[in-house]
């Protein structure tokens, strides 16, 4: 099966062929590199930009205004923080112009830890992104969802922030993307750029379809009755594994869309289990998981058997390079497992 980088690439190929995507651009996004994580290799509308994140976001906005359909990349979300004003502007342009100007644009950026990226290649962006109104925000945890969410993002009339969990980009999926060949090696030969000279290389795209994951719809990865676990991105598969390891009957929800998010899905599950753990790896102060905790107590307080819990990144100024530093800074399998067990066992 395709890995997530390949899945995104295929979705973007589909989108430039069928959904009107005109520009896939950013630092090192075009040939020869095709993106630092290979997610844009071989795409016909991919191009390289100056090293200027403000220019990238600004140009995306201009392109969208003029009728193009851009997919802009910020090479690492660690480098998006000088553009927050522009992201806010993109998010308020439709509203401020009372619907005159909408901005159909996608911004994608790799997020999170897991590759020993040190202080500046380990940032999360979900807390900051969810505080910016006017954007839709998605974050897949599987290649198939990455494919389907990218299709939806490229169809949306509004700005969509597509967060790519760095640690999962090279992990192969367990579900087939409609159209991809069954054999990984065949797929790789078709669409992965060769090492060495790429000037004559052209990808051979499989016959792809418009498989779409609707924005705003969560996925119940595993049903269960003992407690609810809500996560997304890198920590989602850890939640699945931790529950299995601990033999807990957890209901695990992959949120996938952070804004708008599938409150109905969370609510139904929490009503059933009475216990909920939210897991993400952004730093834990003014964190999106805290929004979910707040909403939970606001609407479901009297149905809770235990306080809703959050496992998130420590509130440290950065994620240190050394192994032990990264491990202690962002949730690991063990942390999640322990939190689940405690929550499942918690009694007043």
């Amino acid at each position, binding site marked *: 099966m395709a890995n997530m980088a390949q899945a995104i690439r295929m979705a973007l190929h589909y989108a430039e062929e069928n959904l009107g995507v005109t520009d896939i651009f950013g630092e090192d996004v075009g040939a020869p590199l095709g993106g630092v994580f290979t997610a844009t290799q071989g795409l016909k509308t991919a191009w390289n930009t100056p090293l200027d994140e403000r220019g990238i976001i600004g*140009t995306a906005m*201009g392109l969208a205004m003029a009728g193009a359909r851009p997919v802009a990349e910020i090479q690492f979300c660690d480098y998006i923080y000088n553009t927050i004003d522009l992201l806010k502007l993109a998010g308020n342009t439709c509203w401020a112009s009372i619907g005159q100007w909408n901005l159909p644009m996608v911004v994608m950026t790799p997020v999170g830890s897991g590759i020993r990226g040190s202080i500046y290649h380990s940032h999360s962006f979900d807390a900051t992104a969810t505080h910016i109104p006017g954007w839709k925000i998605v974050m897949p945890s599987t290649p198939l969802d990455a494919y389907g969410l990218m299709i939806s993002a490229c169809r949306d009339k509004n700005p969509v922030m597509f967060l790519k969990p760095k640690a999962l980009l090279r992990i192969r999926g367990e579900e087939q993307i409609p159209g991809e060949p069954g054999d990984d090696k065949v797929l790789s030969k078709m669409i992965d750029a060769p090492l060495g000279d790429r000037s004559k290389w052209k990808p051979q795209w499989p016959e792809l379809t418009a498989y779409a994951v609707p924005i705003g719809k969560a996925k119940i990865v595993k049903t269960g009755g003992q407690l609810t676990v809500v996560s997304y991105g890198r920590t989602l598969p850890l939640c699945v594994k931790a529950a299995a390891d601990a033999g807990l009957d957890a209901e695990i929800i992959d949120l996938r869309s952070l804004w708008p998010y599938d409150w109905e899905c969370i609510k139904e599950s929490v009503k059933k289990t009475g216990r909920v753990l939210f897991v993400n790896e952004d730093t834990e102060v003014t964190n999106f998981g805290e929004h979910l905790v707040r909403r939970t107590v606001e609407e479901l307080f009297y149905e809770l058997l235990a306080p809703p819990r959050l496992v998130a990144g420590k509130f440290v100024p950065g994620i240190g390079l050394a192994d032990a530093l990264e491990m202690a800074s962002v949730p690991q399998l063990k942390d999640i497992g322990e939190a689940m067990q405690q929550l499942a066992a918690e009694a007043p």
Partner: protein
Amino acid sequence: MAPRERKLKAVAPLVTHSDELPLDKKLLLQMHEMMVKSRALEERLIAMYKSGHGYFWIGGPGEEAFNVPLGLLIKKGQGPAFDFLHFHYRQSATLLAMGEDPIHALRQMKNTATDPYSGGRNFAGHFSKREWNIVPVSSPIEVQYAMAPGTALVQKRHGGDGITVVTGGDAGTAEGDFASCLIWSTRPGNELPVLIIVTNNKWGISTSYATQQGAARLSDRGVAFQMRTKTIDGNDPVSAYLELKEAFEYVRTERKPYLVEANISRLYGHSSASGANYVKDEADCITQFEERLDERGILSKKEAQAVREKWVEAIADMARKVKDEPQPDGSTIFDHTWARED
């Protein structure tokens, strides 16, 4: 040994046309009327602020000699075949020269629900008009320079002669976005059809240009990028018209950028926050132009006065009309957060 370095000088020529009126009489009169109409509008907006019919005023009195010719030269319409316009908040005169009805500016001033630019959400002077490719004027200074390459890129691909026009103030050129615009417009082989304008009134609120920026001419900022540049007298509508015309033609046909700095006046201070009173020691482009028109026998002072009265009155009428228009309702705050699905 090779020579070490040279002390370099500013290189963009300053262009003026001080004593000439080499334009059609009809055009001269048209420009005059538009300038006067715009001034009447701005003075009404200020009066509205002062009498409590609006919370804040900012606008363009003093820039008419530049903004009117700019408006006349724009290729107006929707989509990449037409000009895309990333404007500053002092450009009511440009809109009026393009044919906009001044009543809408009054509506925005009074933040009525009928304000077509923002529905009572945004400050005066923050225009937005999609049918004419006028992208929303934004309060954050200079972000327009970061967006302009995007619309210009679409126009470059589209072909034809539609270009992007982006304007901003002198102080704002200190923001990095101005530099971004220069870089993104001159990518080798991908030069963009964008007319980059700086209106230099020598002030950013209370801070003078002379104390903050070491560039002798702001247009020199384009030189390193091998871009055409010039500094023009934006207080003279004739000079402004001719110089802008040449720059527009270059950008339309060559599909490459041009950086124009226009020296202009700030005639009522920065905004209502600084009082919005007439500043006597700044050149008033309308008075100066009327002097010349009178001298050449094109328009007498009396005739000019009549033009002014006509518009003062017309706009006063509009203001009375707007007075009774409804304010937006609190229940609408979420409207248009998302684009309409259709």
